[in-house]
């Protein structure tokens, strides 16, 4: 159970090794990596700046991670989120979940991302080639994605 907010990049292999190295109780590791796309819809972007709310970010991520650990039997989990100026192709966020079985690892990773996207206080501003920049609008679909977790802890059991 670990959370980091940082400007520097992360290495997925290193992060997995740090969580699972030397352990033989883990059967399944799921990672999610979010990256900066070179265009928002039709408009190309040159960079993306991530602002956050220091203190609350860590508190929200810890709450979200604790909730995932209540719902699924996780052996380990990790959330790393970058802040500052990023460019197309750069990593933004990493979620890693490890469990004895694959469905728990998959579902917990998806849950962490859905909650993180709707509750963790990060904001993205996109810069365009013409020098303008604009705050990214929240997507309705991210709120909708949360709602499926309110019925049942396991999609596999549906």
């Amino acid at each position, binding site marked *: 159970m670990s959370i980091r907010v940082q400007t520097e990049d992360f290495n997925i292999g290193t992060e997995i090794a740090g969580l699972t190295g030397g352990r033989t109780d883990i059967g399944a590791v799921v990672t999610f990596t979010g990256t900066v796309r070179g265009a928002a819809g039709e408009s190309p972007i040159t960079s993306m700046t991530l602002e956050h709310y220091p203190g609350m970010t860590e508190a929200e991520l810890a709450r979200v991670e604790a909730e995932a650990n209540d719902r699924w039997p996780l052996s380990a989990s990790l959330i790393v989120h970058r802040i500052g100026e990023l460019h197309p192709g750069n990593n*933004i*966020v990493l979620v890693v979940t490890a469990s004895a079985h694959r469905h728990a690892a998959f579902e917990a990773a998806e849950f962490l991302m859905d909650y993180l996207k709707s509750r963790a*206080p990060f*904001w993205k501003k996109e810069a365009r080639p013409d020098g303008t920049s604009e*705050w990214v*609008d*929240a997507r309705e679909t991210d709120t909708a994605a949360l709602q499926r977790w309110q019925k049942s802890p396991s999609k596999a059991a549906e």
Partner: protein
Amino acid sequence: MTSGTKTNTVTLRYFAWVREKIGFAEEEIFLPAEVATVAELIVWLKTRGETYQAAFDKPEVVRTALDQTHARADTPIANAREIAFFPPVTGG
């Protein structure tokens, strides 16, 4: 200080486009006694000038946290020390 006369000092924090419209990231205010909820605080802030009116033009879009925990328009401010206003989050 007797109960009923709230003269708490609270820190207000603004993020993303809310911060840009207000013009700064943080301020300390004395919370007037008649301001009991988040919604009432927003109404009061809008009396303070154009930048606040612009930031809270559509108050239903602005999100609030009391002491770094998500709150709603009808959440009582109670003894919060830090109140933050920001757009819907877009991380991840």
